[in-house]
């Protein structure tokens, strides 16, 4: 489903801008196209404009500039109730004065669907979220997870092709949240619906999405499938926002054959893959994932640059070991190693030599 090459754009933002006060832009020049059936997550810190985008799509906010198209039709001036978009709210927004069945029946009633048909659809939707027996209850009598399922069923019961979810799992505890992530993903895949999902939880984004749009400062920083996002972040913000990351500041010394030689601020030399740096003399911040650091330098290619590191701390975490090192003046350089039978356990105070494959170390912008 991540294969978007041939599919026509189902949801499309074109040069969309949004300002609330007429002075600052909350969303700056948003361009985004979703094919049908895609699960897209908008990820970003609070205030990054992701929820505003969702609300513009739902019709609760109007775009200050630009077009939003749904299935090829500009919907800027269509009121929310005519857009036919399902939506799951952060606090579920289940109507407290109606039973679960009445809640689900509500969108069907306003669409003037007959009673027997309504009952059938409500039943099917409840079964889909495994809440078949709860039709007669009031929302207040349900647990958070159950309410969440009902909210999902309600957004799906009228067969919307596009469903928006605004941090729907934010109020659940960790275990339930993980469970619901899979549940939502499963249902979305089964029904083939298009989902735009807003969250600030990167794990959620990575596990559920076909593609993730990382928002910051009103712009999409990177729009990519989870693996690309994690392994090939295009700028420092994405690299730091997604997953754990070690950074070292330095200056580009030379770029040759797709490998940049970076001189760190303490004089050490490392190899890195140039991503958004282009010429020697430029300031850069190199980024490397903790699990890609190698301290068995024999495994590295001949002539690779290595750095001296002093072990600060060794933390046993069960499945992995987490070692904190002091590297090139950075005290928080983390290495993660798998708890394998032959794995070396470093001791604090030990001096080791570390290195990495040049393609795992990305030279990004210095910001």
């Amino acid at each position, binding site marked *: 489903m991540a294969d978007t090459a041939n599919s026509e754009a189902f949801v499309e933002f074109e040069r969309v801008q949004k300002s609330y006060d007429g002075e600052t832009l909350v969303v700056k020049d948003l361009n985004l196209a979703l094919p049908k059936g895609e699960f897209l997550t908008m990820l970003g810190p609070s205030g990054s404009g992701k929820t505003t985008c969702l609300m513009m799509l*739902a*019709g*609760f906010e109007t775009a200050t500039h630009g077009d939003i198209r749904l299935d090829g039709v500009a919907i800027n001036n269509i*009121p*929310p*109730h*005519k*857009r*036919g*978009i*399902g*939506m799951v*709210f*952060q*606090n579920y*927004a289940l*109507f*407290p*004065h109606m039973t679960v069945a009445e809640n689900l029946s*509500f*969108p069907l009633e*306003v*669409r003037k669907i007959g009673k027997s048909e309504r009952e059938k659809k409500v039943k099917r939707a409840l079964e889909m979220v495994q809440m078949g027996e709860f039709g007669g209850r009031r929302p207040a009598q349900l647990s958070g997870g159950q309410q969440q399922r009902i909210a999902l069923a*309600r*957004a799906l019961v*009228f067969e919307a092709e596009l469903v*928006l979810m605004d941090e729907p799992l934010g109020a659940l505890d960790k275990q339930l949240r993980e469970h619901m992530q899979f549940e939502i993903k499963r249902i979305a895949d089964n029904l083939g619906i298009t989902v735009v999902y807003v969250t600030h939880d990167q794990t959620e984004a990575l596990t559920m999405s076909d593609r993730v749009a990382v928002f910051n400062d009103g712009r999409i920083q990177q729009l990519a499938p989870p693996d690309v996002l994690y392994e090939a972040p295009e700028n420092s913000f994405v690299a730091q926002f997604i997953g754990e990351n070690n950074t070292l500041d330095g200056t580009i010394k030379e770029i040759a054959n797709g490998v940049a030689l970076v001189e760190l601020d303490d004089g050490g030399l490392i190899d890195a893959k140039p991503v958004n740096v282009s010429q020697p003399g430029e300031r850069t911040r190199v980024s490397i994932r903790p699990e890609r650091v190698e301290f068995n330098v024999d495994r590295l290619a001949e002539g690779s640059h290595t750095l001296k590191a002093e072990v600060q701390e060794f933390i046993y975490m069960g499945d992995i070991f987490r070692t904190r090192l002091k590297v090139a003046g950075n005290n928080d350089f983390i290495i993660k190693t798998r708890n394998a039978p032959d794995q070396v356990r470093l001791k604090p105070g030990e001096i080791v030599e570390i290195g990495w494959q040049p393609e795992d170390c990305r030279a990004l912008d210095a910001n």
Partner: protein
Amino acid sequence: MSNASEAPTPDDGLRLMESADTGPVLAADGTPLKRSLGRALRRQKLRALMLIAPLLLFVLLTFIAPIADMLFRSVENQIVSDTLPRTVVALKDWDSTSGELPSEQIYEAAYYDIFIAAERKLHTRLGSRLNYELTGASSLFRKSGRGLDDIGEVYQDQFEDLNKAWKDGETWAQVMGSDAWLSEANSWGKSSGKLAPALELRDGIAELLPKTAESYSSFANFVRVDDGDNPASEDPWSLVYAALWQDLTSGADVSAYSGPNADLLQEAASAAQDFESISFTDGFAEIDEDWVDTPIWQTIKTYSPKYTSGYFLNSVDMKKTPDGPALRDEDQRIYGLLFKRTMFMSLVITISCIMLGYPVAWILANLPARTANLLMILVLLPFWTSLLVRTSAWKVMLQQQGVINDVLVWLGLVGDGDRLVMINNQFGTIVAMTHILLPFMILPLYSVMQTIPQTYLRAAKSLGATNWTAFWRVYFPQSVPGIGAGSILVFILAIGYYITPEIVGGTTGTFISNRIAYHISSSLNWGLAAALGAILLAVVLILYWAYDKIVGIDNVKLG
């Protein structure tokens, strides 16, 4: 069931546990847990009680007790039987529906009762009480208080003509009082600061001259207690002469009497037969023709019990008649109309408050807190202005020479000759009271609406509901508790409102409470006022109960 005994099932275990749990749960020291808990909580409860005790006492003494006393007046009617004890007893056998006049015995009883009441100045109070039921009773009693002297004076004059000694109070005292009392009374001086000694009748005199003894005792007691004088030296009432004549002519054997002044008594006994006499019936007839007509006697008989439903019947436009309760004449019915009008206008005021208050509360609830607080001050502003000032302001606005009419005339919408009548009628009352009670609607509505998140409306719209459907199906039902709370507040306040209808109500816009106030302060018919108030209270309680049944009182939220 036979299978169950063969194979144990998980249910068996449960059943076993339940059967073991049937006894009371025990605390660690073996006492039942309930009692143990109760003891532990008692101190807490006591402390809580102590904290509310001052307020509780205050409310009990200054609020509950007076109200209870006031409500009690709606059935209390002891004044008739207290003032006319003999008459009430005598009237028992009189058939008030027969149309016949009461017998001479009843007139006699009434003579004694009213004479004594008049001496004690109680007859006018009874007159005004009976005047609520029979117009003219008040003046009748006032007149009778003076007129009844004439009956006794007929005999008094003849006794005194017979022998001057009868003029003298001491003659009477010697005949009626015991020797011990006489000597005690003669040595009593007013300066002693004590009451004169209580009359002790001479042995046998009560049997010999029963009526005289009784009336003289009443006289002696009155002189002693009410006047603070010595009965032994005071001249008796004319009533006592009438009583003596009655005793002597009804065959009293005065020869058996051997006390002081026996000769006087014997002389009187032989002369009394030839005295000019007057029947009590005629005596009453001479005072006022109304006494020889049935209505006054019917009224006295009807209201002779200690407790009466008369006030309540009166409050619902009925009256007590000798044939039982009956509706009043059409032109005398007023309270039914007033109750209906009070209900209707309160309802209109409540509905107007909802209509005007709902949008305001909505705006307040959906504005940013800063602006909402500012606007809230405007809503609360009327609270800081005197009620009287606000009502008077409406008078200025609505009267025929007032602001609104002036503007309408100036605009040419209304001719100068036919200015609108907007005050001193129902319209004025409704307008002014809606304005005054509006905050009581807005506040509960606002606090309920504040708790309804906007996401519900968004959710409804995202589900395909139009703005109206979203409001009506999703928002409105959740705001109903606010409407309920506001309506109860406004309606109950309106139903008992007094000042505003009094000022701007005229004659067609007054409430039942204005009538209650009238009876409390002008007509002084407190019993009727209490009955009207009790009915009003009952109506409010019934409405409250009905509201609880229909809407449920837990659905009422003040915030």
